[in-house]
């Protein structure tokens, strides 16, 4: 086999997984800058809410929800997840269910520790 011959890195028919890449095309920079400003202003909103809201569960949940909004924009726009195939999206996002389980379990555990100590 002649290894020096030119390999088409975008070839769909004779697919070679060691070099194959899909053809790249730009989606423009408009969405990127919009995401930047969104992250910027949501961070400022976080700081304003920190001093304006009464400390407690309500404020904490607001911060976590705003954090998830920021995370969503980073993953879907900055990391181009929205342009990926559905199978890839599910492969990466569905396993995060385990984290939800960990949160639920450890918060229950934490309230038990709390009852032991105080």
């Amino acid at each position: 086999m002649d290894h020096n011959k030119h390999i088409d890195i975008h070839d769909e028919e004779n697919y070679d997984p060691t070099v194959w890449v899909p053809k790249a095309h730009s989606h423009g920079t408009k969405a990127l800058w919009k995401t930047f400003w969104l992250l910027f202003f949501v961070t400022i909103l976080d700081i304003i809410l920190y001093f304006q809201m009464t400390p407690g569960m309500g404020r904490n949940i607001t911060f976590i929800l705003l954090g998830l909004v920021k995370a969503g924009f980073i993953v879907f726009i900055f990391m181009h997840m929205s342009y990926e195939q559905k199978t890839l999206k599910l492969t990466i996002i569905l396993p995060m269910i385990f984290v939800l389980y960990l949160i639920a379990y450890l918060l229950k555990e934490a309230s038990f520790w709390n009852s032991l100590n105080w």
Partner: protein
Amino acid sequence: MSSNAVNTLPTWAGGRSPFRVSYGKFMMWIFLLSDAFTFSSLLVGYGAVRFSFPEPVLEEISFGTNLHEKYHDGFVEMLQAKGVFSESHWPSPDLVFNHFPFLHGLHLPLLFVSLMTFILIFSSVTMVLAVEAGQRMQQKKVALYMFYTILGGLAFLGCQAWEWTQFITEGATLNSNPWGPVPFAALFFIVTGFHGFHVFSGVVLNAVIFTNVLKGTYEKRGHYEMVEKTGLYWHFVDLVWVFVFTFFYLI
């Protein structure tokens, strides 16, 4: 020859890429998923310890108060004596994270961490602009945006080094904490340290890819996907910071 026969075996018989991404990019996603689990464990662990302690005792101090003048650098001791900082409850973040470089002694809660967050957001947007320029095969623009990204990363690391120095000077270590329970300082150093190490590795990876961009490696290869892959890693570092910021500095 048998070795020849092995070499000509098809590596993949599935016909086409199952996810329509290159294997390298797919592996980066899988790695980031595993890294997300690591950070989730650390942050959820922090949350559990945090909620096993009673809520912080609050102390109203107006923004920009000159603590140096008012308490002669005995601010932390004053709060300890008042019972605001005590081992029995979690400290309020605005009383801990109130320093700013070159403005010694002023009470500026959460100002420095906001600056750090903006630096990281900005280096994220320059990274994604480098990826976008790579998709259009514009070598010079990729190089320029990657350069800005590396500068942003170094600026962030500098900020973190300053913040750590500040806290260590005040007496916070892995097993002592002037503001309250020991796990607060310990987890602060472990989690921001682990994140900071990711930033450091990201800067190294970006520097390697940046050199390759300058050398024209990706022009020869015909695509800038390496920039996209290292970009995924860099955005992940920013993504983790969103949650470190939320859990350590806001909650």
